[in-house]
């Protein structure tokens, strides 16, 4: 089982991403191919050699590691990329988007053509104030191959927020902002289970247990009016029957009732959930569940639950603001989380102790979140997408 030493890391790349917000990242097979998607629906792929090529320079004056141009652009989505996930063998990349579609890309698929890509985001980043920046003069473009998706999986009718894969990559789960969940058979490219959460709720995160038989779905409803704030949900579902197995929040708050929307009732869960448990994961052995608080909460906590009974094992806090992404290391010993405090925090699962913090905040409060994380299957590289328009890549010893 590959492992890594989180205390020994080195920033090896900072990939500039087009003056837009990269919102999703995934390693393709190993730590030397990386995909990242932005809010315009573009997915770029980079080849990242073991060592940066000689002469490779940082992409801007505030950068500390070399930038490399992408080699390919995956085209087809027309709205924000919300999630990326690659099968363990690296052969398939699955993307979800606000354009309501799930797309499957063959990572060794043929190029459809070539295009010029403009990836210098530094001009946009310098535009201060509340007025829209003038459209910057494009920097010299980079020629990239283009590719279209091998399959488009239809079934959602609203923004897709959530994506999770089983350990073997044969099943995927997706969830949208109309509270619909679909579990897919990836080899067959077809849905095998569907269900809906609470009306008005968004599916903000969904994960599959390693064996793909159990799903974890996190629901959260953003405010509709002064008082119309339905409670959230964090539930385990049986995929085969599409039925609820365990209401994890109910385990914590036995009196929680979705129909009750009083202030007092909401206070019971709001501190626990904050602005939604927007990122979730199963531990590699399937015994633990992690769920991170999102939004601008003043302490971004990650709750660890026993997957068998929903009981809270411990809460790990450390992020100054909401968590945006989390994952377990493949040996299950570490929990890696990224947040709105622009930092990656690595904690020990056994005792919650924080052992490493990556990334230096570049400004004051609310400065450039980390929006997504990915770790290579060999555990040697960690990528973090940053809404400043950068994808950071660290290497562990």
């Amino acid at each position, binding site marked *: 089982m590959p492992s890594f030493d989180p205390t020994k890391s080195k920033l090896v790349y900072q990939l500039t991403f087009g003056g837009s917000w990269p919102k999703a990242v995934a390693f393709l097979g190993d730590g030397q191919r990386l995909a990242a998607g932005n*809010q315009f629906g573009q997915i770029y792929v980079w080849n990242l050699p073991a060592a940066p090529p000689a002469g490779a320079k940082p992409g801007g004056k505030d950068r500390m590691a070399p930038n490399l141009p992408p080699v390919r652009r995956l085209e087809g989505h027309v709205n924000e990329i919300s999630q990326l996930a690659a099968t363990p063998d690296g052969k398939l990349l699955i993307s979800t988007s606000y354009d309501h579609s799930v797309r499957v890309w063959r990572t060794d698929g043929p190029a459809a053509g070539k295009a010029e890509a403009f990836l210098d985001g530094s001009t946009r980043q310098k535009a201060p104030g509340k007025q*829209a*920046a003038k*459209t910057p003069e494009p920097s010299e473009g980079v020629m990239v191959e283009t590719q279209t998706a091998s399959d488009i999986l239809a079934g959602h009718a609203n923004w897709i927020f959530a994506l999770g894969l089983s350990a073997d990559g044969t099943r995927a789960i997706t969830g949208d902002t109309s509270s619909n969940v679909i579990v897919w058979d990836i080899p067959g490219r077809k849905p095998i289970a569907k269900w809906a959460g609470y009306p008005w709720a968004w599916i903000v995160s969904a994960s599959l247990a390693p064996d793909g038989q159990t799903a974890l779905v996190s629901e959260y409803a*953003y405010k*509709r*009016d*002064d008082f*119309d704030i339905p409670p959230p949900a964090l539930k385990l579902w049986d995929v085969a029957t599409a039925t609820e197995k365990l209401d994890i929040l109910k385990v914590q708050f036995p009196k929680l009732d979705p129909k009750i929307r009083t202030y007092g009732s909401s206070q019971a869960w709001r501190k626990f959930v904050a602005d939604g448990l927007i990122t979730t994961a199963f531990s590699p052995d399937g015994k633990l569940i992690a769920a991170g608080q999102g939004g601008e909460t003043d302490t971004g906590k990650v709750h660890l639950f026993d997957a068998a009974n929903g009981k809270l094992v411990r809460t790990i806090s450390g992020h100054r603001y909401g968590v945006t992404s989390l994952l377990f290391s493949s040996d299950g010993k570490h929990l890696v989380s990224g947040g709105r405090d622009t930092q990656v925090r690595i904690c020990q699962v056994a005792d919650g102790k924080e052992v490493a913090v990556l990334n230096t905040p570049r400004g004051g409060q*609310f400065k450039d979140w980390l929006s997504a994380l990915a770790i290579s299957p060999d555990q040697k590289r960690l990528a973090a997408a940053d809404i400043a328009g950068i994808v950071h890549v660290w290497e562990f010893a």
Partner: protein
Amino acid sequence: MDQPDARARAGDRGNTMPPICNPTAHLSRRALMKGTLAAAGGVVMNWGGLTGTALGEEAKKERKHCILLWMNGGASQFETFDMKPGRPTGGPYRPISTNVNGIQICELMPKMAKQMDKVAVIRSMRTSQVDHPGGIYLMHTGYQPRGNIRYPEMGAVVAKYQGLGDSDLPNFVKISSNGDAGAGFLGPKYQPFGIGAEGGLPPFSTSQKPELDEKRRNDLRSFVDSQFVETSRSEVAKMHRESYEAARRLQKARQAFNIDAEWAKSKDLYGDSEFGRRCLMARRLVETGVAFVEVGQSSYDSHADNASWHRGLVPPMEHAWAGLLEDLKQRGLLDTTLVVWTGEIGRTPTINNRAGRDHYVRCWSTALAGCGIKGGQTYGESDENGAEVKTNPVTEGDFFATVYSALGINPKKENYAGIRPVPLANFGSNPVKELLD
């Protein structure tokens, strides 16, 4: 009221009546006044007696009404009426077509998309107060806040010029909304009557006594007040008297505020939300003759997570708004009811690093429908990024002039703040003729 002085005065005038007030009644009245003043911001609401005559009914029909849908905090024009798809300022939502050829609005508003033939959107608002307190004041009064003049809100103006003087219902009602300029220099008679978020009446509005007892108490109070007023021209006493009369008349009209039965039938039309209920209440109040109803929704101040906030707030709002327009039309009320949609500010073209939009008043959107308005159009344009007005800027004064004109109220009409004449819409403002029918 000072009981011993009242009796003394009564005695001074040779009045040999025994004491006519008992402490319990006084305490009840003080509690009523305190509750009334608390609810009405310290001044008295406007009431009138409800007439049941055919002439009264006819007068109500000819009068115009206004419903202000107040988007507190400032709804984003980019997530409602002035989309910039594909631009850096565009955000994640996509436009949808409407029932007016050439007009597209945000995908969050599918029901309003079918009502756009009734709606005129102003995409070129350019106003002058960028923060909430100033903006709320500005977009309620049409004037900048000034220390020496208390400008009246739109509702107070409409209450004065279109209100029914003889109604048991107030002429200016606010349902869960903002703004505390009130009646300003128009006087306490035009103060708004506020009801809560779910349409509930203040507790002091209910008398626990049998009607005959209440009448006798009122006769007694009236008599004492009439004695007092001869020796005192106190504004507070006047407020007290009017407040009491108003509260009494409200007893007869309470049923207008009870929408539970109608809600059961109208829930689908207005959408099952609190804002939907408020809009139904507004329609009902307008139908019974109330001149101006303001309905609030809060809060659109999306400095963070702008897309999520609007996805949460806009759908119930637009469902209710579309239902309101449809309901007014079906009841033959839309031609005499102006529906105004606005907040105090717009939102920035640039999305900040909290995924939010901040305050912006250089170029934003409002909308008008119904009485006096030529629907099915957009007025004014913003530039490609929504940063600046490209054509036909509309100031707050022009906006108010347009609203008043649509309601048959001359925006240049002057009232007096002390000895100072003040037009309803600011000097130099002009109604936007293209919007008027």
